[in-house]
């Protein structure tokens, strides 16, 4: 009862803030909406007994990445004139949303609903704990994980190469 009520409230906050985030013309407003979206998403994770993922969601996305994004927006210091041609095109957004949902989400959901994915099952003892996630990440998926960090490093080096005229 309490859980489903909380779920409805958090889900509503998530959807509304996410929609506001893509429809605001002011980049600061949309980033603030994104902060709230991340926070409600983290609460949803916590409700789904993934405590560690929830904490990491707040730490990395709301506390780290978005701060950097806002930092960049502030340094650019856009005024009202620059923002006029950034008015969202609602028709385009709607079409994109329909294509994305129909093309990717719907087939996934269809396939998953035919499998036993949605069947009720008991969770393992330490589900969502840092130990389990760590052991999966650093034992089973060690190679892809390290490759990902290499890709991020490549991106950083690439930015340095492009932005600096003289290295």
């Amino acid at each position, binding site marked *: 009862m309490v859980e489903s009520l909380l779920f409805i409230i958090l889900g509503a906050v998530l959807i509304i803030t996410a929609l506001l985030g893509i429809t605001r013309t002011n980049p600061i407003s949309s980033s603030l909406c994104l902060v709230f979206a991340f926070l409600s998403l983290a609460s949803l994770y916590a409700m789904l007994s993934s405590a560690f993922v929830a904490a*990491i969601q707040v730490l990395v996305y709301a506390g780290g990445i978005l701060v950097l994004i*806002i930092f960049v927006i502030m340094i650019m210091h856009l005024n009202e004139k620059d923002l006029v041609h950034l008015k969202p095109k609602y028709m385009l957004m709607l079409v994109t949303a329909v294509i994305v949902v129909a093309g990717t989400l719907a087939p996934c959901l269809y396939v998953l609903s035919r499998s036993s994915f949605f069947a009720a099952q008991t969770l393992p003892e330490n589900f969502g704990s840092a130990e389990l996630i760590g052991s999966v990440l650093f034992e089973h998926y060690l190679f892809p994980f390290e490759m990902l960090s290499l890709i991020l490093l490549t991106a950083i080096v690439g930015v340095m190469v492009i932005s600096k005229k003289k290295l």
Partner: protein
Amino acid sequence: MDSLTFGAINIVVMAVVMWNIPLQFIPLMIWLERKGAAIIQDRIGPLRANIFGIRLFGLLHTIADAIKLLFKEDIIPNHVHRLYYVMAPFWSMTVALVPLMLIPIASPLQIGAHLFRFQVADYSSGLVLLFAITGLGVYGTFFAGWASNNKYSLLGSLRSSAQMISYELGMGLAIVAVLMAYQEISVSSIVEKQSGMMKLFHWVVPLPNWGIFLNPVAFVVFLVSAFAETNRTPFDLVEGESEIVAGYHTEYSSMKFALFFMAEYAHMVVASIVMATLFLGGYQIPYVTTEQLRHNSHYALCAILIIIALLCLIAGIIVYKRAKAYGMSFAEKLGKKEYFVISYLLFAAALMSIFLVPLVVQMRFAALPSQIIVAALQMMALFGKAMIFLWLYVHVRWTLPRFRYDQLMNLGWKILFPVSLLNIAITGIVISFT
């Protein structure tokens, strides 16, 4: 009572308590800061505000400040972005108060079949969440600076966010080393791990098993980063008066300014309690475990009484030494006798608690009262440890000058960051050998 109701009551009671702890510490800290400045600069300090001549060592100044700020006109300039301008101080204050909810202030009580936790949420990855929430504090400064629509405010908030991002890295990596040393991620189990003696390569070292001894480098890095995160003096470029007026809160007045001011002190209180929890054993009392204390709760009560007596005695002596001089300089109504009366009361309290000690030693307590006594002693231990850090904050503020901006960034990125990375590597090597 079923366990769900009990848990709900526990959470509500502890939430109110934990919410009030920083709020009650704020006026005390403002007073301590002014008196600390006075001691270091060889002055008397605030002593003018009085009610019928009673001054309470300048404590009334904090009340006078609060009343002044409450009754000032709340100006919202026309050129600000209203929503963010109003939201920013509330955001700062909220984020400052929340992290304390994850910290235990005493070991849990066993009431019947239920466990009463002195902690709002015993979150399984509590330490990560603690730093995640602390990291959200930067938005308060961000939006205050941006919404004020003022160059000085924007510069202040840009400085603050750059500083917080840089020092969060060093802080986070120091925490990783600490987590590796404890091999725990929940705050309550970290505190429980710090009881008893330290063991190093199977030898017992005569030191308590505290973070500061397990991982001293992480402690130093964390301490420096905590000063930077709370925007305190060697790192208070955020509001460098000589350069950018007052930084991000230049445009704020009345209670909105007061909220920023309170948030800074609340951050200090929370940072001190977190440091005491992670590095000074939290509520643990050195060399004694909670079990031993509970079996000998009459001695624990004696310890509480002796501590109270000592504190009253020291405070009484300090007050009595000043009583005569102050009585002469403030020759109005009650002010003349005030210091004498207070010092005699303090001496009387000290004597009372000393006389109670022989009575208490012969008493034996049941299970629940002894647990409550031990919890009280543990809370005193935690807040005593936090007071050490709070005094350090005050002392550093009045002794060290402000850093230059490039020095600040160099310290963050070129010293603290590599040092904490190296510390993680060394901690890992040591752990793999033990």
